[in-house]
């Protein structure tokens, strides 16, 4: 739960969003390139989840635990949902769906960091 990790995740999420928009502009569905980018993003999100869970187990507590947990779990599910949806979409808007997922992750991780930094302790 460090700003450095959040910045890294934001960069990965932005890459997913740009790739998604590009494939819409190119009138293509999503391909391997997109899957690799989403895979990197998801790996970073899972790393973040592990770090947060370890910190929580170590006794650190954000002020608003239920909201923090729902963001923590929710943000890790967004790329999965976006990918499944984009894979099923046969028009060129598949990439835009993926781009929306990337943008949502980019916003959610910053909100998550904000929630974490308001510690109850």
């Amino acid at each position, binding site marked *: 739960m460090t700003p450095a990790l959040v910045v890294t995740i934001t960069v990965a999420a932005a890459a997913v969003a740009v790739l998604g928009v590009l*494939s819409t502009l*190119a*009138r*293509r*569905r*999503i*391909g*391997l*390139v*997109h899957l690799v980018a989403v895979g990197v993003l998801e790996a970073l999100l899972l790393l973040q989840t592990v770090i947060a869970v370890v910190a929580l187990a170590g006794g650190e507590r954000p002020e608003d635990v*239920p*909201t923090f947990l*729902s963001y923590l779990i*929710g943000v890790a599910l*967004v790329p999965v949902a*976006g990918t499944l*949806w984009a894979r099923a*979409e*046969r*028009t*060129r*808007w*598949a*990439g*835009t*769906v993926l781009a*929306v*997922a990337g943008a*949502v992750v980019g*916003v959610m991780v910053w909100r998550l960091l904000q929630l974490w930094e308001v510690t109850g302790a």
Partner: protein
Amino acid sequence: MRDDRGLGAPAEQGASGPGRVLVAVYGTFALAAGARAAVQLATRFDEAPVAYLLSAFAAAVYVVATVGLARGARGRRLALIAITVELVGVLAVGTLSLADPAAFPDETVWSAYGRGYYFVPLVLPVLGLLLLRRGPAAQKSPPKSPPKSPPP
């Protein structure tokens, strides 16, 4: 062929595309508003019952709009009603929350025209209504141009 695997196969033609994107965004908001309302109502309902019930109402409107949009032509009426309620809601709550901040001690999705969500709640119903207006015309006259596909 390698390009198709790497960068994605050429897309199929279809008018439903932008609608699908809107469904994705609406679904995200239905989830976000719903989760937020659930947390607020479950953990601190006493602090600001009006604001939290409003969050729950907003979440319900997003869910109905998502379902309506996802059903395409069959859900058009449902989507139209839900999105109109949504537009009225975001304008009314946005104005009230700025005019009388004391009445809204905690943020809702629609507070200050959705400022907490980068004004997406304000833009979304407008896009939704534009898409629904365009809908029936697009379905009556299918595109006459031959499907465009990039050269192999």
